């Protein structure tokens, strides 16, 4: 018996998926507590978020939030860094610190039966950090080395140069998040102690707990461990985002002999709290956010120029970048760039098709449950709620808002947020080989620049 393979099987009825219920409480010290119960496995994920971020720092202190966060595991008033690591490892817990523009997130992952011990260690690390001199020196050397590593990694060079071209001088987003080596080298223990004292505070931050837990029990456990911790972060973000230029230009960073060119094309985009984020998400998905998006089908599947190309809105507290990024063979740098610009212009001038918008909507709404399998994934979503003050039903109703996006919505946001004539184009590659063909495209003036950090 032969099978009819000629038509793709149609999906049947789907069982509904509900985002886990979130119990939101306010602790006495002003921190928000978000608890979601997921009891499938005895694992728990905790995120503690404090508004100690890079975007609230001036240029003279850029990189200090990252350095202070990275020294958190250096030890407490009660135990050395090695003892702290040992205590965590003995209970199979993982502690991770990540510092970004908005703040510092400390995450703990452990088995449910070890949660109380894990939370105690997390609280001790955050509330009673010791910043031992040797640990500060080591973390500082590490950060300077990371900056040095970035200066030789073509993808990092391109991203750093692009940020500097998109944002006006003085906008924090114009600089690398890890800072510049001369500034970072100037930090000493006093800077870290002062910074943590001023900004590692519970108000305006929050604690997210997801897993096999009981809500009331968690509230009393968290309140117990963080009982004496109070106060409000002393620094806040004080800047407006303005573009550095509104005329399209090409900036080449020379890497003699490079076999590939890193390309970035972009400009200032919008913020995470923009109410039109669902429309932007649909727009970006069909343009460059998924495998079958326009950019990837053109540059990869049709031309074989690249292993992959993506576009992205960097959604932050204030307007971040909109950017297309890829790396392509040196010999196809100019034609690849030309296709990127053609696609950008086409998106704005010719608009989008109903079938593309529908496919993007279905994709985004459909993959949502796939990305809510683990306690860590759900905790990540709830941490976004804390950071950006999203409404309580934000995640539960997210798919509805995506499904409501129309062609007109997508075109409206494209008209505002995709501006090919203002794009700053950065290419990191072999200037001798690529400059003439790129100039011959006639799309913008070409300038040679030294990479970020090299002037110092």
């Amino acid at each position: 018996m032969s099978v009819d393979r000629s038509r793709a099987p149609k999906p049947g009825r789907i069982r509904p998926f509900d985002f886990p219920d979130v119990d939101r409480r306010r602790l006495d010290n002003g921190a928000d507590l978000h608890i979601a119960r997921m009891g499938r496995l005895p694992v728990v994920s905790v995120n503690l978020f404090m508004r100690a971020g890079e975007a609230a720092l001036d240029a003279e202190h850029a990189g200090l939030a990252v350095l202070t966060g990275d020294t958190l595991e250096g030890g407490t008033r009660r135990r050395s860094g090695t003892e702290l690591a040992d205590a965590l490892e003995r209970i199979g817990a993982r502690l991770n610190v990540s510092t970004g523009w908005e703040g510092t997130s400390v995450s703990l992952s452990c088995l449910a039966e070890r949660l109380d011990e894990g939370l105690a260690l997390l609280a001790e690390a955050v509330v009673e950090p010791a910043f031992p001199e040797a640990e500060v020196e080591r973390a500082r050397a590490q950060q300077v080395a990371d900056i040095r590593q970035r200066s030789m990694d073509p993808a990092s060079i391109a991203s750093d140069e692009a940020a500097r071209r998109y944002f006006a001088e003085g906008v924090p987003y114009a600089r690398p998040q890890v800072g510049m080596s001369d500034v970072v080298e100037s930090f000493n223990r006093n800077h870290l102690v002062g910074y943590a004292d001023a900004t590692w505070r519970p108000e305006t931050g929050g604690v997210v707990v997801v897993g096999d837990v009981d809500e009331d029990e968690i509230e009393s456990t968290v309140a117990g461990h963080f009982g004496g911790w109070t106060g409000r972060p002393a620094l806040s973000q004080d800047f407006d985002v303005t573009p550095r230029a509104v005329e399209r230009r090409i900036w080449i960073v020379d890497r003699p002999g490079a076999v590939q060119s890193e390309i970035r094309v972009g400009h200032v985009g919008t913020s995470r709290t923009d109410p039109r984020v669902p429309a932007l998400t649909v727009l970006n998905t069909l343009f460059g956010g998924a495998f079958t998006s326009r950019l990837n089908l053109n540059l990869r599947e049709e031309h074989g120029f690249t292993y992959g190309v993506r576009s992205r809105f960097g959604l932050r507290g204030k307007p971040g970048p909109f950017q297309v990024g890829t790396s392509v063979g040196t010999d196809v740098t100019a034609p690849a760039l030309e296709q990127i610009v053609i696609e950008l212009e086409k998106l704005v001038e010719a608009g989008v098709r109903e079938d593309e918008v529908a496919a993007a909507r279905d994709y985004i709404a459909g993959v949502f449950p796939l990305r809510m399998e683990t306690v860590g994934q759900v905790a990540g979503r709830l941490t976004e709620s804390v950071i950006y003050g999203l409404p309580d039903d934000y995640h539960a109703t997210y798919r509805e808002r995506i499904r409501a996006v129309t062609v007109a919505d997508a075109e409206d946001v494209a008209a505002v947020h995709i501006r090919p004539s203002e794009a700053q184009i950065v290419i990191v590659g072999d200037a001798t080989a690529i400059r003439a063909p790129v100039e011959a495209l006639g799309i913008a003036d070409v300038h040679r620049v030294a990479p970020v950090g090299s002037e110092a």
Partner: protein
Amino acid sequence: MRRGRTRASFRQAMVVTVAHALTGGAASPLDAQQGDQVEVHIPYTQHTLPNGLTVLVHRDPSIPVVSVNLWYHVGSKNEVPGRTGFAHLFEHLMFEGSAHVPEGEFDTRLEAVGGVNNGSTTNDRTNYWETVPSNALELAIWLEADRMGYLLETMTQEKLDIQRDVVKNERRQGVDNQPYGRAFETVYAHLYPDGHPYQWPVIGSMDDLSTATLDDVKEFFRTYYAPNNASIAVAGDVRERTVIRLVEKYFGDIPAGPPVPEVVAPDVSLATDDVVVLEDAVPLPRLYAAWHSAPEFSEDDAVMEVLGAILTDGKASRLHRRLVFDDQIAQDVGSFQNSQQLAGSFWLVATARPDVALGQIEGVVREEIGRVAREGVEPREVERAVNGIQADFVRSLQRVGGFGGKADRLNEYQMMTGDPGFVRRDLARYRRVTPAAVQDAARRFLDGRPAVWLSVVPEGRPELATGTPPIGEGDTP
């Protein structure tokens, strides 16, 4: 990145450290016993179709999602010199359409239902998966069956040429244009002799990629892409009989292929230390050391992973304390037991502080390995390592799909051990590790044993490379 986790040696090894694991049944995935002795398992059923296709089903209705996962028992080890990189290039072609799936539709159809998919190639095997809302199970099975049964009908020179360019860019991005990018293939090339199936990189060489032909594609497909050389695992919100019915419907009439040629790997050992230096556009010197160890899923494989954790995982680990904290000569240090089917290796990677000569780091590494071999390790060090591995095991039970999800693990166990239920025995390997076993393994595999020592140093700074004269056979204790 999709379609091409090449250099899987490294990533796979990293994954192994983080998630050597599996499982979890649906209803009661793990039963907490006393203390940390959690029991893990992935309940499954197994069937074999008349054409030789192995079918594994695991039900987990936690969320309305299902993952369809296929492993083909072919990797770069099956290639021949002159055609390196072919298994992975072929993997790319599997996404370009088949007789009933027009070019481009493999992805658009899956994305339209809210599904994601990917594939990867290692030295040992090639895998493919689709994770989709559970109502799209039949679509995923239809797609996989079509490319297993009917790929060549629509294969063209143009598809090959475009994917060849994509893969060349993948190689440039991951290897040639990447600081330290050539380190792994360099170590492999020195660790294994000419003709050994692990001697060349999964991504292949530019020259070999250039010369691959359409005839190669056809022959490779007919040799390796047959149901008797594959197994399919379906995990998630599904019923067993539905899965079996659909798999029989779409895969049942795909004919079995000829027996797959066996890959024979000669026994390997290094007679002496092999000291290699690469000058590269890198800011900091980095040392790579690799020793032959034990193959995947053996007892020694687990012991070596525990030893690696004791040496380098976390601030309290021995080499981290020495190199990074006390002597302050390294930025970072890591290690992994590179678990592979035919032969395993143990790797250590350390990045020096600026201007530190790698010989200094080599000295400390030798000293600390010697200390483990002479004095052994503390029970608490073993306990700490095993607790971490165990917690990672449990965490990894959360996902049905993707690389390292439950469907992927069932197939891995099936293909590499012949027992899809190996997960229990897998975790048991780690729980059995004793301080004495760790000491013994350090003696047998590392202490004084010849290794590949690769120094990657900034251009023009060869003096930063290791310069220790090689130890000869006679010097080995």
